């Protein structure tokens, strides 16, 4: 009897769901299918570049120049590209990992920049976010508005004078010149603030009554309770700084300091196009891992920007 009721309920629920999907009108089952076909198609288009890169990175040079010669080598006809390589090979990966010391250097530069920024944001940003969320001070609202405006200011506006400031501290052509401005970026403060504000005041008060110092509140209350917000920030930050273009392009002249994100090997050369694919995939992999591991946090981080106080 009970299962029967549940079955009926399930049916009603299913119907309701279907009705929601067809919010444009009475489309019926066919319409339902059309909507889903549209979404699956859209998702396939969105994912195509990723499949393309992975597949290309596994192709030999002959196969690549066969398919893409029209684009990179000026051959007649059009580029063509199958979903899977005919003769898959890991040669390009081996080549990059064993024979390209410059690639390693760039990989490490990327790692240094990204983690330098993230560690700095973790220290400075969390403290500022905590201060904004739970303490009162003079002109707090003004400071916060200032932080929000700075968060929305594009890099180009300050590029020139940033360069001069960095020059003053002898930080041009130095990875610190990229890391330090990133550390003091105000965007993570804004995102973490949203999470810290949610921590109930009563929790703080009772900890204070138990004799906890303010610093202890931060360490053993804010950090653990707000950890999802901090992680969300770190995930967003990783994706941002791993793919940095403008700053290294302007502030770095020395090639040995370039990060992966501005590395694009000369693909017009036959022997190099496979490496370009493999390098692209290797650049993508850490970001993909962070994305897959932190997707829930990523979504929370994105949403934190939208939820009001």
């Amino acid at each position, binding site marked *: 009897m009970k299962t029967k009721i549940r079955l009926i309920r399930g049916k009603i629920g299913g119907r309701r*769901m279907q009705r929601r*999907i067809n*919010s444009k009108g009475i489309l019926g089952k066919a319409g339902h299918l059309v909507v889903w076909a549209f*979404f699956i198609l859209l*998702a396939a288009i*969105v994912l195509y*570049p*990723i499949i*393309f*890169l992975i597949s290309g990175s596994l192709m030999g040079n002959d196969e690549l120049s066969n398919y*893409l010669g029209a*684009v990179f080598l000026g051959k007649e006809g*059009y*580029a*063509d590209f199958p979903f899977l390589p005919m003769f898959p090979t890991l040669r390009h990966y081996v080549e990059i990992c064993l024979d390209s010391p410059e690639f390693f250097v760039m990989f490490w530069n990327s790692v240094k920049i990204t983690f330098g920024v993230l560690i700095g944001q973790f220290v400075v940003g969390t403290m*500022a976010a905590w*201060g904004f969320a739970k*303490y*009162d*001070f*003079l002109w707090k609202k003004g*400071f916060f*508005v200032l932080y*929000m*405006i700075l968060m*929305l*200011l*594009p890099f*180009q*506006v300050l*590029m*020139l*004078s940033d*360069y001069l*400031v960095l020059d003053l501290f002898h930080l041009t052509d130095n990875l610190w010149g990229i890391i*330090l401005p990133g550390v*003091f970026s105000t965007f993570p*403060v804004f995102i973490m603030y949203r999470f810290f504000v949610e921590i109930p005041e009563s929790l703080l008060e009772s900890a204070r009554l138990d004799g906890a110092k303010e610093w202890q509140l931060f360490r053993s209350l804010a950090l653990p309770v707000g950890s999802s917000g901090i992680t969300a920030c770190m995930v967003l930050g990783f*994706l941002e700084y791993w*793919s940095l273009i*403008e700053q290294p*392009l*302007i502030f770095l002249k020395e090639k040995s300091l370039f990060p*992966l*994100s*501005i*590395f*694009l090997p000369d693909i017009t050369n036959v022997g190099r196009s496979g490496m370009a694919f493999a390098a*692209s995939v290797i*650049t*993508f992999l850490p*970001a993909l891992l962070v*994305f897959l591991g932190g*997707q829930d946090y*990523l*979504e929370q981080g*994105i949403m934190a*920007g*939208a*939820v009001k106080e």
Partner: protein
Amino acid sequence: MRSIGKTHKSIRGFLWILPSFLGVVVFYLLPYADVVRRSFLGAVDNRFVGLENYKTVIGNTAFLLAVKNTLLFTLICIPVLILLALLCAVVLYKSKYGGIIKSAFLMPMALPAVSVALVWRVLFHSQGLLNHWLLGIGIAGSDWMNTKNAFWILLVSYIWKNLGYDIVLWMAGLAGISTNIYEAARVDGAGERQCFFYITLPNLKSSFFTITVLSFLNSFKVFREAYLVAGDYPHESIYMMQHLFNNWFRAFSFDKMAAAAVMESGVLLVLILLLQKAWDSKEE
């Protein structure tokens, strides 16, 4: 006594911000003050020239082109993205497989611009994949990145990269609407269409402002792909403010750069404050 306690507390609160604020002063506020100062100085001799730089910049054809393109791009890309994301979010919100499809849409966020640029080169070359496919269905292709179409390619790139982000934002907004309202409306005989227009949309108003701001913020980042695919001097339909600033920087035209930067930040400031006002009025 009370006021001393209060001052003490206020100083203690500010201490949390202090490290961050010092950095902000050094890396953001001082540079900005310097930009403003420079905008009134000549490039070579640092002589005070009044509004001369502003006049030069406003009469500069490259500047006008960049402003026109950036405005046009922003005015088209943001409404398209926001509407498309809303449509997707409404459909995906209540469905079983919504999560998987949402993940697929979020994936481009993780793809670094260098990797994107490689794919774009192969896709949009005059002998590239897109033209090949179009030929297959009997449509004449084009040299996408070197014609006016470059603008639309950039627009698609922006939507491709940010659709997932905005869907997540809209879904957060949808999750904030109590289901009771829908139940009550249905009992009163409201159909799906009525529910959508009279309950869903009005309740999403506050999300709308934040999503606009964040989409705007992300629209600056499309320069990454544009730069990597087309370099310093792309087709004139996608010559953006960022290209202009980069090129001026390389040419040591610091006077023009500073004046343009002050103008751009002024426009942004007005926009942000207007949005903020709209935000606050919605909150009451």
